[in-house]
């Protein structure tokens, strides 16, 4: 079954051209001109046949892309790619904090978008071959089940957050650079945007640290990257 993608983009021409190129890639594509329409579609789809990935333009009339991103993230852990017209820290970071997993900047190459989508979908379907439970103090990661518990409470992580945690957890105490994490989680090369890692680490901390302001497990090693301390 081909992956089902929802494009939320107010510009009809971009939506159409994106749909064409993604359909060429073999995806099933649905377009929505506004966040409101999209959330309607999304609600229905959750019941019937869920989407595999959502693409959200940050500049939308009515409810903006950030709010839409938060709403989708609230309802589901599926991968979200945001589309922005600017590379400013402000837009990118705000979008990632709203729950997006990755982003592309206009004007983007269709190949680039397709590659980002492939990376996210491949990851989403990847099954973990390691059958084990990792425990770090009050934090418990069940690799196979894909669940995480903090002080006996189940924590809801997005796929990206879960993979990020697993990557750090499978190399405890070893510093992983932003580049390594970008490569392993997002399939970027050396030039991937380090902010992707930083924002996801921040989001992850709010979920798996008892005191996110003073993290005990996910430690920043200045100038080098991040590591997980047991």
């Amino acid at each position, binding site marked *: 079954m081909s992956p089902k993608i929802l494009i939320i983009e107010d510009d009809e*021409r971009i939506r159409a051209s994106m749909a064409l*190129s993604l359909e060429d890639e073999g995806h099933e594509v649905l377009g929505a001109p506004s966040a409101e329409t999209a959330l309607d579609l999304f609600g229905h789809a959750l019941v019937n046949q869920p989407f595999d990935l959502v693409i959200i333009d940050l500049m939308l009339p009515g409810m903006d892309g950030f709010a839409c991103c938060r709403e989708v993230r609230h309802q589901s852990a599926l991968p979200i790619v945001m589309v922005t*017209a600017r590379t400013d820290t402000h837009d990118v970071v705000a979008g990632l904090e709203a729950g997006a997993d990755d982003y592309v900047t206009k*004007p983007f190459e269709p190949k680039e978008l397709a590659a980002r989508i492939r990376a996210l979908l491949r990851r989403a379907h990847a099954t973990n071959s390691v059958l084990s439970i990792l425990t770090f103090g009050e934090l418990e990661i069940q690799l196979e089940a894909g669940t995480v518990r903090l002080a006996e409470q189940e924590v809801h992580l997005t796929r990206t957050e879960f993979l990020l945690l697993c990557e750090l957890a499978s190399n405890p105490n070893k510093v992983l650079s932003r580049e390594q994490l970008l490569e392993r989680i997002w399939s970027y090369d050396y030039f991937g945007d380090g902010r992707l890692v930083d924002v996801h680490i921040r989001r992850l901390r709010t979920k798996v640290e008892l005191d996110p302001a003073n993290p005990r497990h996910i430690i920043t090693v200045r*100038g080098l990257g991040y590591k997980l301390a047991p």
Partner: protein
Amino acid sequence: MTDALPELAGTRRLLRLRHPLYHSRLSSRITFLFGMSALVLGVMVSAITYYATRSSIVGQYVTAAETTALDNGSVIHADLADQLSGPLIVNNIDQATSNSSSLLYEKGSWTFTARLSILNPQDLPVSLRNSVKLGVPAEQIFILPSNGEAYIAVGQPINAPSFVARYFEVFPMSQAQNELNSLLSALVAAATLTTIVGLTLGRWAARRVLRPLREVSEVARQISEGQIDARIETSSQSDLAILTRSFNRMVDLFQDRLEREERFASDISHELRSPLTTLGSSISILESHSDELPPRSSQALALLSQEVRRFQRMVVDLLEISRIDAGMADFQGEEVYIVELVVRSLERSTSTPPPIETDPDVDQWRVFADKRRFERVIANLLENAERYAGGATRVTIGRGSEGHVRVAIEDEGPGVPEIDRTRIFDRFARAASSAGRRGAGGGTGLGLALVSEHVKLHGGAIWAESNLPNGSRFVVELPHLIVEELPEAER
């Protein structure tokens, strides 16, 4: 370019340094003026006081001396009339007076007491003695050479038909001298105090007068460093309020304009990017189906695609450059190893990277770089070499000027003539010496300009030089971070 960049940075630093210096100079000038005025005033008042008091004190002493001497004179007159002997007369006078010396000349000889150091009639001033000899009473203040002290001598002729005598009485002035001395010290102290008060006042006044200036320059500095919403606190004092109000108003207008420009740039950016995205996507779709098109259409599509890509790049570059111009560049700095950064940038920019030569000294050097921007620098320089010089032949990484790492991209093309070496970094530059050749390249005309801007954002410099015997060398120097030894475990 080589010299222009460091020079520019130097001027800016100099200006920033000069501000506080200039202020302190102005404020010390004001302080100095106040101090000098106070000193002059103090000295003048002291001098007038001193001279007025001195003449009054001396006058009193002279009057007192005269009175005493004349009284004693009449006593002597009576004694001489009674035909008392000289020594007896002088002795009587001594008994009656406390601190003066009497000298009596009668019957051709001197009689005098030794109560003061005046022992000798020769010590009396000659003019005084002459005056008395001529029968005119006189007094005179004089300094005794033997001890350097001041005395007043009063002389009078005492004449009667039966006798001729001259009587001199000498009074010490040391007490008056002491009084004047203590007055003088008091006045010097007062003048000093006045000067100190003047200096303090001057300092206070200078601070007060210069405070608005300092505030303005401080706020101006903050604004120039990007804190565009910095304002001067409005002062209640009306004369300063004018300055602060107009300054704040100026900054308001400036900020407003900046914000409008930012909005405009953002609008343009969005408006341009959207159709470009559609164009790019649509052309990609067509390209992936180009084998289904007739040859002529496919050819046209290739042209269209090439131009659309160029147009896309030009728009992206222009937007990038205008963001840098507006001071809104979003520098994504990271600490990275320079060698890895260069190698990765080369690999990404071309499928056939030129040979790299690395000075082992810089292996562990790191720079604070925006990887995306640096990659553009390398890509644009390679593209430039490709377009005008048949491709880069070598890339070297080594030590640059103090605190800098140097990355050089060399080619063996025709080289860049001296006159074009700074010009090629201008926007839409066309080399003066070979106008036609560069135009044909199909670049955006912004490549090297953008390279230069990116390097500047890194705090570095870029220039072109000759790569002897032929070709050119584009040199990028970036400041490197202090090399720290990392603990082995964290490597």
